[in-house]
């Protein structure tokens, strides 16, 4: 059994987790909720083993590097962090319904990683610029931030659904947590993500300085990470100083997430495309 097989399995287990959480939510089957949690935890364990195995395989190939260095591996790690963070939130707030709005993101990430033809799945050695101890610190911190923002966006969507049908007596709406609770968790998760994104940008800056002698050069990736950072900084400030809550914060959580995805994915595939087109 190699890491690719295990990661392929993970894709389907996250799909199945999503289905379990959804059935649990729609049919209010509390026992199934527990099954969903245990199943998701097992899927996370399998994925953890797969990532560890990929690390070990890289040593077997004589390359020896952390599995965090290309688009494929980062998407896999992104999914891992989303699920790990979600399970932590479920345990902390005892709210299983959040799974319906967050685990699908992990599935989509894994499905993209497994099925996309744009990204290279093989274990390739590191070019000289990436051979640094800052690599792991930078990638891990950024992705904890990204995962938190993804969960926050999931919560934001949940808030808006509940808010739009506030007067509804439908069981589906009623079984969502109260608006206040969703709002509070969204805020907490955003704060958590903001701190990790800050550390991620800082470790990136320190790394850039040790590799090229410049901690900040306004390249598109850096600029977009700053834009994302600014969106969340503004969100936290309007909440603290202008008392914004509820739907506005939910929309900002979604806007922030779009910026995260653009920083992470769009810059690599859209802007670099623009640039390479521009320079040809």
């Amino acid at each position, binding site marked *: 059994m190699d890491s690719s097989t295990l990661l392929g399995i993970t894709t389907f287990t996250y799909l199945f987790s999503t289905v379990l959480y959804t059935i649990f939510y729609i049919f209010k089957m509390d026992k199934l909720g527990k099954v969903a949690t245990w199943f998701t935890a097992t899927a996370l364990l399998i994925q953890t083993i797969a990532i560890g195995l990929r690390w070990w395989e890289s040593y077997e190939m004589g*390359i020896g590097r952390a599995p965090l260095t290309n688009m494929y591996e980062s998407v896999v790690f992104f999914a891992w962090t989303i699920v790990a963070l979600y399970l932590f939130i479920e345990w902390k707030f005892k709210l299983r319904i959040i799974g319906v709005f967050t685990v699908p993101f992990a599935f989509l990430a894994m499905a993209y990683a497994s099925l996309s033809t744009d990204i290279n799945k093989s274990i*390739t*050695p590191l*070019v*000289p*610029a990436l*051979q*640094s101890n800052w690599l792991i610190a930078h990638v891990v911190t950024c992705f904890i931030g990204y995962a938190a923002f993804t969960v926050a966006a999931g919560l934001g969507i949940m808030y808006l659904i509940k808010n739009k049908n506030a007067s509804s007596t439908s069981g589906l709406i009623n079984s969502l947590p109260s608006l206040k609770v969703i709002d*509070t968790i969204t805020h907490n998760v955003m*704060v958590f993500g*903001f*701190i990790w994104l*800050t*550390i991620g940008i*800082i470790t990136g*800056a*320190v790394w850039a*300085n*040790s*590799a*090229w*002698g*410049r*901690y*900040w050069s*306004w390249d*598109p990736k850096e*600029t*977009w990470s*700053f*834009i994302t950072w*600014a*969106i969340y*900084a*503004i969100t936290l*400030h*309007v909440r603290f*100083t*202008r008392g914004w809550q509820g739907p506005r914060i939910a929309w900002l959580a979604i806007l922030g997430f779009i910026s995260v995805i653009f920083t992470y994915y769009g*810059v690599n595939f859209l*802007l670099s495309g*623009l*640039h390479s087109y*521009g*320079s040809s």
Partner: protein
Amino acid sequence: MKSSNPFWNFFASVKLALFTLGCIAVTSIIGTLIPQKEPMQFYVNQYGSKVATYFQLLDFTDMYTSWWFLALLGLLSINLIVCSIDRFPITWKQITQDNLELPLERLEKFRLSASFNTQLSEQEVITTLPNMLAKAGWKIESRNRDGIHLFFGQKMPWSRIGVYLVHLSILIIFTGAVYGQLNGFRGSMMLPELQSSSTVFPFQSSSTINLGFTVKCERFEIEFYDNNMPKEYRSLLTVLEDDQVIVQKEIEVNTPLKYEGITFYQASYQPFNDFIFTIAESTNSPTIFTGEFQKEIKWLENNVSFGIINLESVRDQAVRLKIWFSDPTGEPSEFWIDAGEMIEFQRGDSVYFFSAKQRYATGLQVAKDPGVWIVYVGFLLMISGLYVAFFMSHKRLWLIIKNSGTKTQIEIRGSTNKNQAGFTTRFQDLATALENEL
């Protein structure tokens, strides 16, 4: 500090800060869509001459150093300073004020409250309460006033400065950036192997910078993985002052050489058409020659001639070389060697040590940034400030002890500046515990 100065109030407003930060974020998108710092002709070809002229007029072609972008950053800095000066006195008062002197009506207003009666006398309550609260982690002061006995305890009042630390850290980072920009430089050097130079070509100007010392490239090499991807670029550099070797270091990408505040980074390389030969006879110290492909090189003192007559390359790298070698002991010999490998061979009574490799120039990025440590201090302060600002809260607790005839009434008030939900639970647990024990 309420000011009637509208100018001051303008710069102290959070609205302005949010607006400025928003503008910085939105305008910085421009530079990610339009390639930066290209020659004018590039923009003309790409966007047409009319659009290109507008781009140049608005500095969109180098926007992050444009006057308007720097003005936005400056505005944000002024805003942060004024805002902090405006608010800090209030915060300082909240940290240092005598909470036992707060008017009782103010205490009534705190959101968290609980009260209960006990059969114990007022005196008994006053003697037992401090110990019970100490067990729960509250250090308690007390005072008799207005016919009541007031207890007060607080946790982490200084955590209120967290947000100021974060704002200060941004100013420190900006200061470091400006200081580095004014007192440092960034440039490049292209050093062919075996050559030295003390001149740096800065990126932003056409003049040159004299280092005040000399850097020599002793050797440059590239290592490849089996799949031909580059594994490492490596240069052996020597720093010389008055022809004296001061430092020697092998640099790689991610491990630069630092000397006198100037850092030399491995950035690029360039293969040359000539070759470097190292040759020694028995144990004598080696002599170094340079020469071109298929040219005869003469080592006059030993009456030796040699040269490269054939080679194998992978891309622009010569990996194997066929050497022609002649000395007075007999017929010239021809043999293949790996580039850079030192070989030993015997001809007649002489033992030779010989190696040959293609010559490269190493491309160094040279940077002097005396502001970088200020920036790093800002980074550390920002992380710790965020931690304090978000995860530490100023929690306050008052207990009002009143004698009401045969009973003693205990009223508890609590407040926290953050994490209301968490503190509410702890407050209620504490109130219940006190009620049960008294």
